[in-house]
């Protein structure tokens, strides 16, 4: 026994951990599986491999031909893309032009903000109105009932101010 183990050391050969413990298990599980199902069940069309060589050689040659067509269609795509890109560009430019600064497309909040921060005087605003606008405002005034007008005057205006304005 001693001699044997000495021999083992001399040879320098080692086995993986648990090699012999698992040996049967490894061997038997594969054998058992092969016994149940040794083949995959996959089948082939008759003479498949016989005609395969030519099929593959044809496919390789055709692929080379398609390569040329591919290059051509790439050019076509490039032209089409260039046309599409310029159309989009033209559309964008003309669209932007149409979208000029207009009182209707400015948000009310922005206008309000502008008036508040720029410190506009009443006279500045008044200068923006034409005579027609003013007459419109007058007509609006007429629709206010005398009762509410009276209330407004009583609550907000100084009687002295009214007197001076009447001069």
């Amino acid at each position, binding site marked *: 026994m001693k001699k044997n183990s000495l021999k083992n050391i001399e040879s320098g050969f080692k086995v993986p951990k648990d090699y012999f413990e698992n040996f049967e298990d490894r061997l038997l599980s594969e054998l058992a599986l092969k016994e149940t199902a040794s083949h995959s*069940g996959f*089948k082939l069309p008759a003479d*498949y491999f016989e005609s395969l060589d030519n099929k593959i050689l044809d496919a390789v040659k055709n692929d080379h031909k398609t390569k040329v067509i591919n290059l051509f269609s790439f050019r076509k795509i490039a032209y089409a893309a260039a046309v599409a890109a310029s159309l989009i560009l033209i559309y964008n430019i003309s669209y932007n032009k149409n979208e000029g600064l207009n009182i209707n497309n400015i948000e009310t909040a922005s206008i309000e903000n502008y008036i508040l921060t720029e410190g506009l005087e009443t006279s500045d605003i008044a200068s923006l109105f034409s005579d027609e606008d003013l007459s419109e405002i007058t007509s609006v005034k007429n629709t206010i009932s005398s009762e509410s007008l009276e209330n407004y005057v009583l609550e907000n205006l100084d009687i002295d101010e009214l007197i001076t304005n009447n001069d």
Partner: protein
Amino acid sequence: MILESELVEKLKSDTNIDSAFKELVSLYKERLYWHIRHIVKSHDDADDVLQNTFIKVYKNIGNFKGESKLFSWMYRIATNEAITFINKNAKRLQITNEETQTIAINNLAADVYFEGEAIQLKLQKAIATLPQKQQLVFNMKYFEDLKFKDMSDILETSEGALKASYHIAVKKIQDYLTNN
């Protein structure tokens, strides 16, 4: 039989490429076919992928450095093509790779190029439960009978890891077959 180095030399030359390529096809078509077939399952898909594989080989033979064997280089292309094929299908149908495989296996039952024995179908179902790398290892060893050394070159994984992986795969399949 022609030496691999001579064949590579011929494949890289402009004058001999066609005859050398023919030789390459007849030499590897069957092995690569079965390798692909075990990944994609259906004959028609395997036929498509095999042709794409040889087209890739023909186009890229100029880039073949000779660092690995021509044999393992081609197997690697075939593996990539087959897996890309599955991924593309999954993307097209907007499902996972595993679902694509389940569909492929369910189709086998009605496939004329599949022997309709229950055990073979069950075996395919059992294989499908494994992770992709383990499936490759199992198929390459169990059905294609490749050496662990060659598999190590193809899959760029150590032989030890492949052996362990194969053993686990066999166990899992056996368990699946006894439990289902």
